[in-house]
């Protein structure tokens, strides 16, 4: 069985293996043992509320209970920009018009902003190559929205994700080459690495503070602004299906888009319902296609757990769970669990009565 649970001490080796296999480009999880250990410590402190709510870093592990191994990770950073300064460019429009001449020019412009300061970020998604099927990526990503909604007071109204921008096979970023490198004399790969180990705000201090008029940049740089790396396109589509939108914020180095959503607008949040657990000993075929499965969360903050069950388990008031599922979720009969479809256009409606939307 595959289950989501808080990242733990014993996941370090598995995490290191995954980070090494992922290679460059995953700036939030570099293959650096000390750094990964620090992340695990922060995650533990966050789930156990031993740190300020704003400092929380909630990292979830996807555990394969048969292999007894962590095969994926995803995260929520409760607030960004409180320790360091968090920068983005905002792709904006400057209009200059002369009625006398009948000229009206729209100039796309990048403005440096700190607008995501104090906002919740979803981050650090990584899934082991061996498990990239059967909706595991969706589970890893969407479980976070159930957590966000159940514990809203710890998070901002709006959440965002930074998507990796365009770089070529050699790791060169067209935007960095045209813009960042003019102000800071290092290669993109190095800037990217420095970002990963937490030095991004230092570099940002050296970046231009006045607006950048895009017509002054070469076509190669202009066309990647707000575009994702090919490898990141599926993740972007998934977030878009959840209701995340590109609102003009991009990464200051590679121009990758920031996508945003208000928690109450997120599809998983909108389409989820609560049911009481009914433990059923009658055998059940758990192994149904992803299309027919729903996510079940135990709604626990300290020991948040999510797995998937066939949609057929759901009744108007209850959800029937086999004992082994109840055990990994750490729930008993009568507990209230939360359900949401795993896939877009998955089993719907699980709302039962007109008017009941939550």
């Amino acid at each position: 069985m595959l289950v989501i649970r808080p990242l733990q001490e014993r996941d370090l080796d598995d995490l290191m293996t995954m980070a090494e296999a992922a290679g460059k480009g995953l700036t939030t999880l570099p293959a650096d043992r000390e750094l990964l250990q620090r992340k695990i410590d922060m995650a533990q402190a966050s789930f156990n509320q031993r740190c300020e709510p704003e400092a929380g870093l909630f990292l979830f592990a996807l555990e394969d209970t048969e292999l007894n191994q962590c095969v994926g990770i995803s995260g929520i950073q409760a607030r960004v920009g409180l320790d360091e300064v968090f920068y983005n460019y905002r792709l904006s429009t400057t209009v200059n018009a002369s009625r006398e001449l009948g000229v009206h020019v729209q100039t796309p412009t990048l403005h440096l902003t700190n607008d995501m300061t104090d906002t919740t970020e979803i981050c650090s998604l990584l899934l082991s190559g061996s498990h990239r099927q059967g909706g595991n990526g969706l589970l890893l990503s969407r479980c976070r929205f159930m957590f966000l909604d159940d514990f809203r007071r710890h998070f901002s109204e709006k959440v965002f994700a930074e998507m990796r921008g365009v770089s070529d096979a050699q790791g060169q970023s067209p935007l960095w080459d045209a813009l960042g490198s003019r102000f800071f004399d290092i290669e993109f790969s190095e800037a990217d690495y420095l970002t990963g180990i937490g030095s991004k705000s230092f570099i940002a201090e050296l970046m231009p503070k006045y607006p950048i008029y895009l017509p002054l940049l070469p076509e190669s740089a202009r066309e990647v602004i707000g575009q994702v790396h090919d490898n990141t396109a599926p993740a972007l589509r998934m977030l878009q299906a959840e209701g995340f939108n590109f609102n003009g914020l991009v990464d200051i180095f590679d121009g990758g888009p920031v996508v945003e959503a208000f928690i109450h607008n997120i599809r998983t949040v909108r389409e989820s319902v609560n049911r009481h657990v009914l433990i059923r000993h009658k055998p059940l075929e758990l192994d149904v296609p992803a299309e027919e499965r729903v996510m079940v969360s135990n709604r626990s903050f300290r020991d948040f757990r999510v797995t998937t069950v066939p949609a057929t388990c759901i009744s108007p008031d209850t959800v029937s769970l086999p004992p082994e599922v109840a055990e990994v979720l750490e729930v008993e009969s009568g507990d209230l669990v939360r359900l949401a479809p795993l896939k877009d256009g998955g089993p719907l409606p699980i709302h039962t009565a007109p008017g009941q939307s939550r």
Partner: protein
Amino acid sequence: MWRVRPVQQGDLKDLIKLAGDHGSQVSSTLPKTEEALAARIDESVASFAGQRSPDHYPRFLFVLEDLGRGQVQGVAGIDARAGNGQPFYNYRMDALIHASHELGVSRRVDVLYPSHALTDRTLLGAFAIAPKLRGTEAFELLSRARLLFIARHREWFSERMVVEIQGIQTEDGKVPFWDSLGRHFFNMDFDTADRYSGMLSKTFIAELMPPNPIYVTLLSPQAQEALAQPHPMTKAVMALLQQEGFHAGHYVDIFDGGPVLEARTDTLKTLVTSDRKRLRLAETDGGERCLLAASEGGDFRCILATVSESLNDVLRAPPEVVQELQCESGCDVTVAPL
């Protein structure tokens, strides 16, 4: 024989020829269409006559006249107040320091700021002369006669003066600074912008120029090279202005990136070395080669002459000089050494 005098309506034809002669190769702030030129002449005539309204600062045009052939071979202007009551835009070149304490890095970043700080200074401009006269005494006469006019009407002009020097343009008429910057915002080629600039109120510049500072490093290499560089054909003009005491400061033209020269009016060589004298009719031999200016406003005249000084602020000049100046013995003149 050369004489500099205020422009008149009758000069229009000669001016059109002059403006056309140079074409885009030596653009000057002189308008290029007949209509705009005629309007500019009207403006000058009214200015010399003191008929400008309080909203409209005087704009003077002087012509260089070949007395023998009765033909105008050059033109030069003064705007009493740059911008003529509206903002006068330039870029101010400045540098920012980008420093990171933690990384121990500090870097100088060159920036162009939109500026109208030069508004209301006195502006020399609209200079054009027949190519064969470049570098001659007539060339110097045309350029410096304006300064003698200022010396004789000092209170009409500002404390500080500016001149825009034409920037770099390639053989095929391209303006690298414009192509890298202005073109994107004005959505027109350099010649069109240049034409509008001579023709229309400058409001369109305020409306269309980029409102925020520009990082020099993002301009094309050609534009960066051209920044604050004068067009090679402006060498003679530049040299003369620098001798006068003009120097390149922090400002450049927003169209072609050419340098804007600045000076304090009262420290200009022509103003410092000029004297007010009384002209006395006398046969002289030898003496000093001078610029000689007489009369006020629309009657202003300036010529080249060889005169000799005597005591008591008297200047002795032969009859032909008095005649060229259209004045009489005993009249008040301003003289400056060549």
